[in-house]
């Protein structure tokens, strides 16, 4: 089954995707901006802290050099008691025993002169606490070390605030981005959808359908203009094709009519003259020529068919009618037509579909084998209706199938069999103008020709225009030849 008939569309998908992209971009941007700001702030604070601790440590070292341990210890204890500037102190001996200050135990592994983060036991306000500090270390003597630390509370709070604000910003950006992005991408999607709808209506036969061009004159308007120009061109071609077809019909048929009339008149007058055979042969040749011209015209007309001529119909009824017409002929040719019909609703021009079906059956009869069966079946498969004609003849080789659908192509190289090579290409054209497809497949053995049309449920109320008394065959001598 042709895949294009089964595809389902998801409305709003493009608008949602657009909004999602916009949101994603906004969220990433927000995160990057916040993080840069945060890490800059952290860096500045760290430098400030380094200066503070270095300054304090150097001042204490100076005080020790000037006044000795006693001055230092009393100063430290005084400072520790004041709890000023969140600073903590400790002077310890080589084994880590406290000599002065409010840090109780020397943090293990802390030796470097550079800023380091560690957890210490500290006494503040008469209580012993475990606190995280950033600390500087100085060596005062061979057996004496100084630690100056700063409580890291504000740093931790800053970090927490960073993560909190990051989460909040991302949430806000996501909500805003999704809603605004939805609105923004809807405009683009609206334009695209308007174009698609216009195209659909145009395809269904309303050749005057065009896209609206706004005075904004932006890219969307340019797209609309180009789109409209294409539609103009298609409309022009369809109309000129129709006109050309009518012109061809007239200009080609007039001289042919003269010749034929002249010959017939001569035949009427001539009695039993020896010219009779010549005249009859010429007339037969002319009939073949006329059949070809008519075949081309039918093809050209079918090509220019638009959906405004479509009515709801059932392929099963079309097949039944073709069966009624061809069953006696098949029997005469020593073959049997078998019907396997189930409802297969579609929209189309019934005369064209009947012509196509007749061509397929005629083909099957011509190429079928004596005593063979030709199965004519209709059915629904998913979103498509199908009409299948399967014979038991020699079939068509897979690599020749595409060529078989081309105009004037005949698989019989000698071109000795009767036919113009237009039959299958008419079927293919009829399938295409109905937005369907003709598939030639292997019937193991034989040819299996499948005509697929989009499924159309529900009949419209419009009665068929062609009443019995006012339609009829085209000119005499038309043949449905291959």
């Amino acid at each position, binding site marked *: 089954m042709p895949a294009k008939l089964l595809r389902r569309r998801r409305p709003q998908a493009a608008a949602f995707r657009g909004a999602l992209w916009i949101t994603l971009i906004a969220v990433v941007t927000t995160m990057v901006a916040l993080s840069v700001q945060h890490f800059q702030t952290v860096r500045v604070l760290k430098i400030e802290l380094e200066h503070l601790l270095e300054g304090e440590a150097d001042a204490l070292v100076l005080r020790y050099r000037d006044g000795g341990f006693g001055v230092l210890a009393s100063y430290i204890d005084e400072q520790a008691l004041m709890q000023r500037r969140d600073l903590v102190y400790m002077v310890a001996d080589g084994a880590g025993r406290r000599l002065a200050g409010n840090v109780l135990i020397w943090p293990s592994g802390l030796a470097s002169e550079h800023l380091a983060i560690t957890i210490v036991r500290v006494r503040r306000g008469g209580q012993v606490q475990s606190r995280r500090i950033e600390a500087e270390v100085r060596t005062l003597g061979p057996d004496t070390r100084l630690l100056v630390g700063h409580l890291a509370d504000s740093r931790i709070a800053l970090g927490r605030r960073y993560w909190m604000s990051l989460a909040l910003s991302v949430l806000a950006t996501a909500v805003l981005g999704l809603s605004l992005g939805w609105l923004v991408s809807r405009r683009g999607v609206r334009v695209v959808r308007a174009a698609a709808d216009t195209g659909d209506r145009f395809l269904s036969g309303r050749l005057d359908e065009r896209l609206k061009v706004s005075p904004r004159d932006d890219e969307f308007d340019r797209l609309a203009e180009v789109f409209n120009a294409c539609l103009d061109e298609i409309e022009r071609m369809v109309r000129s094709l129709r006109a050309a077809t009518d012109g061809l019909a007239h200009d080609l048929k007039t001289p042919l009519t003269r010749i034929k009339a002249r010959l017939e008149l001569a035949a009427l007058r001539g009695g039993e003259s020896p010219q009779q055979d010549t005249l009859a042969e010429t007339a037969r040749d002319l009939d073949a020529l006329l059949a070809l011209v008519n075949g081309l015209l039918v093809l050209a007309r079918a090509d220019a068919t638009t959906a405004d001529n479509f009515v709801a119909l059932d392929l099963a009824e079309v097949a039944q009618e073709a069966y009624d017409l061809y069953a006696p002929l098949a029997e005469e040719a020593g073959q049997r037509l078998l019907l396997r019909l189930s409802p297969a609703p579609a929209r189309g021009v019934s005369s064209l579909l009947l*012509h196509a079906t007749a061509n397929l059956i005629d083909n099957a009869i011509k190429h079928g084998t004596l005593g063979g069966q030709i199965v004519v079946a209709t059915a629904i498969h998913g979103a498509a209706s199908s009409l299948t004609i399967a014979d038991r003849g020699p079939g068509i080789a897979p690599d020749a199938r595409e060529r078989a659908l081309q105009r004037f192509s005949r698989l019989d190289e000698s071109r000795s069999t009767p036919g113009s090579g237009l039959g299958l290409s008419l079927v293919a054209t009829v399938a295409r103008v109905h937005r369907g497809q003709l598939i030639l497949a292997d019937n193991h053995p034989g040819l299996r020709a499948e005509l697929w049309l989009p499924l159309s449920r529900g009949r419209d109320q419009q009665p068929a225009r062609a009443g019995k008394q006012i339609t009829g*065959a085209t*000119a005499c*001598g038309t043949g449905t030849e291959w």
Partner: protein
Amino acid sequence: MKLLLIEDDRTTASYVQQGLAELGHACDHAQTGLDGLTAALTNNYDAIILDRNLPQLDGLSVLQALRSQGQTTPVLILSALGQVDDRIKGLEAGSDDYLTKPFSFGELMARIAAIVRRGSGAATATTTLQVGDLELDLLARAAKRGARRIELLNKEFQLLEYFMRHAGQVVTRTMLLEAAWDYSFDPGTNVIDVHVSRLRGKLEHGDEPPLLHTVRGAGYQLYAR
């Protein structure tokens, strides 16, 4: 028969006129729509053959003007425009038949004969048709020849009814196709021939005299000798 031909192509007109003359019919020729309309309104014709593409006044307008004057002369439109839509337009405008160019002379004559008889013949509502010993009951949809009942399929019945309504006239294959199948395409003569030969097989059993005769190069004719 006295006929009027309204046709702008001189050559076609001349051949049609000569052909009709050969068969013993008189035929006036008008080359424009206006001339044709004047001729049709001032003379009494058995039938009018009307081209569609005419200078001054196109064929359909001529036809409408004729019909609005109360003229009921049978009109056969002759046109290169052979699509279903074109035919519908022509028949809606009031023509009795529509023949597409190029046409065969036999086809033209058969159709003129048909519309002339339709115009003059008694248009009474008949329920049975009879040709020789062949009888067709339109209400019961039953056919019999003498005492023999004939079983007919739907299409065969339609074909036979058409033949019997045109008994004695030449009926062409396209006329049959239009009458029984209303097709806008010609499936080829052999398809129609097969249907007719099946019908013939049912009509003529054993040594019953033939009823359905083949007219070479034209079509068929139903008559009892």
